């Protein structure tokens, strides 16, 4: 039926056509509010993504890495987390940051170029975007080791892409997690591409199969099926809490947009592929299902549309109003403690800038 390549192993609870199907290992029953919450979050994340892409085109953002098409994988997995769990995202997990409660403008600040971070990670229990491929996966494992040392029931969830699976760091993360039985969920979004490289340049077997050889289970899930993603991530988090160690989830999905706004995917992939994946849209699929079940109605959808419009407006205005950092900001927080070179160079920059003010130039 589903020719996406998901395969028989891929857990699916909602077909691309929006039909609810059962899976023996992954039952799921949500309250209606939870269903609506998923639809709402995915819809708003998509709007955020669209707005950010537009703002980049207008020169208001330096860059944007779109999560278009991956909303279910991100929103679904983040919904499975408790507030006290901790997420370790890449640069593309806007849907995760959103569900963690990171305010949209804080998400956009890095891409605006006013900071290399944007939010207080501990406040939202969501680490900063990590750009160096694979690095954050080890952070997630180390964090999970800390959870374990604390004797806590929290879990960590580390996000990464199909491309990242080739990196040493990600595989070392598998080793450490297995050896220490760390309460971590590895959430790999296989969006079929690492910039211009298809997944078969990174692996010759389905990625979820990687886990077994490291000694923990791997599960493939339809990453465009938010219900399946919730169910499978819950299972993995449950394992973590129960002291059963790590789980690898391969969320099989598709990067609908360019790699980033700097990228031109027409150079390396066919439009037909994109068209096929459009038929598997994660939001549309849930909307059909919830409508058919009467869980959402036109009122709800219109309200959601208004909310999305408001969000768009808020983002547009907020990004444009975002102030540039003060020149001296680059010297702040390089060190926790006093540092003579930092102090001297801060003074050097101040004096240099002051010389223009005196001359009235800059």
């Amino acid at each position, binding site marked *: 039926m589903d020719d996406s390549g998901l395969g028989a192993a891929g857990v699916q609870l909602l077909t691309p056509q929006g039909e609810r199907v059962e899976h023996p290992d992954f039952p799921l029953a949500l309250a209606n509010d939870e269903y609506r919450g998923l639809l709402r979050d995915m819809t708003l994340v998509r709007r955020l993504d669209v707005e950010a892409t537009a703002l980049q085109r207008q020169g208001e953002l330096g860059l944007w890495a779109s999560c278009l098409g991956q909303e279910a994988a991100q929103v679904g997995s983040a919904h499975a987390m408790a507030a006290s769990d901790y997420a370790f995202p890449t640069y593309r997990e806007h849907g995760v940051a959103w569900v963690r409660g990171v305010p949209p403008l804080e998400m956009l600040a*890095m*891409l605006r170029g006013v900071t290399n971070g944007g939010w207080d990670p501990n406040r939202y229990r969501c680490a900063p975007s990590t750009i160096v491929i694979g690095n954050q996966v080890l952070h997630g494992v180390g964090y999970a080791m800390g959870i374990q040392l604390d004797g806590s029931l929290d879990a960590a969830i580390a996000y990464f892409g199909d491309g990242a699976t080739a990196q*040493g760091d990600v595989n070392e993360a598998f080793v450490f997690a297995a050896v220490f039985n760390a309460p971590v969920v590895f959430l790999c979004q296989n969006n079929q591409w690492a910039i211009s490289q298809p997944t078969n340049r990174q692996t010759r077997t389905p990625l979820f199969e990687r886990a077994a050889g490291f000694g923990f289970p791997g599960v493939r899930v339809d990453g465009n099926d938010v219900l399946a993603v919730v169910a499978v991530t819950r299972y993995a988090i449950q394992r973590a809490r129960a002291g059963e160690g790590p789980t690898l989830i391969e969320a099989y999905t598709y990067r609908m947009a360019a790699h980033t706004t700097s990228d031109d995917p027409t150079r390396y992939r066919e439009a037909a592929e994109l068209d096929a994946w459009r038929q598997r849209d994660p939001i549309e699929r849930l909307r059909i299902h919830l409508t058919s079940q009467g869980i959402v109605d036109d009122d709800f959808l219109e309200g959601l549309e208004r909310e999305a419009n408001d969000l768009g407006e808020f983002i547009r205005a907020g990004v444009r109003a975002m102030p540039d*950092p003060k020149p001296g*900001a680059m*010297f702040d927080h390089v060190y926790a403690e006093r540092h003579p070179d930092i102090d001297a*160079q801060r003074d050097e920059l101040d004096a240099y800038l002051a010389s223009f003010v005196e001359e009235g130039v800059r």
Partner: protein
Amino acid sequence: MRSAMNSMPILRASSRKASADMTGIDGNDPQQMTMAQALNLGLRRALERDSKTVLFGEDIGRLGGVFRVTDGLQKDFGEHRVIDAPLAESGIVGAAVGLAMRGYRPVLEMQFDGFVYPAFDQIVSQVAKLRRRTEGAIGMPITIRIPYGGGIGAVEHHSESPEAYFAHTPGLRVLSPSDPQAAFVTIQQAIASDDPVIYLEPKRRYWDKGSVDVCVDPLDLAVTPDPWRARILRAGSDVTVVCYGPMVRTCLEASRANSEVSIEVIDLQSLSPVDYDTIEASVERTARLVVVHEASRNAGLGAEIAARISERCFTVLEAPVMRVTGYDVPYPPNRLEELFLPDLDRVLDGVDRVMSY
């Protein structure tokens, strides 16, 4: 340079045509082209010259690299000469070591400066040391191309200047071109070298155009400048400004903007080894030296140049060597990068400081 080198570049008709398409080359006259195009043409020539030369890196094939420096090369030379790598830099460099042991001459691309660090171990412990370890039995004719430096408004890890790490590593050579002609020539020289070369491409100059003599044979040092020698790009008598890569244009502009001080501008080109003879001869005349680079100051390349020239020109210097550099902070978010990067004003400020010392 490699000793036994095909002196006649073997140009296939098809690829010559392809070169023309890419660069707009028409005949053999010097051509206007960007640095990215000049590098592309240099890589093409290297692939034509030696069938053992292979390109290996992330997204270098169909995409032609994120900066299009390898544009069209996979199409023309095939997937066995221009090889898309899995996303793992240690893997890329480590595999290149093996390819070199098998007789290949790998030319690697690190997608950005900030992504070379996963390969640091292979570079420092293997690439740099294998020739010495095997007493010359195994060579490492590997070129590692790295787009480096800031100024393009990028996000973190895309604007680093890692040259000092490599300059401090015995066994490596480090080159950085500053204009399209130098890029066209030195990329071919780097690839032909039997030593490992870290080839630092000043990414914000990729789109700068310049005249390139495409007929020059870069491997014939009788007609082509030695890549390991610095170049005096502008003669001057009051102060010497040493720079390289992205800062060369900045320093040339600065030298022209100040009509009161006669500024000599030296483009190092080779960052390891540095051609101190040329700098020393210049400072013997000017008695003043400013060193400019984007990288952070502390233990940066400017320190070495200041130390050596302070020693070699001790009795001549009228002022201490001044360094105009990035600050000792992680590269800032791009809204602040103009303040981090030395610009024309900061270079002239440095010049003022040595002149008024």
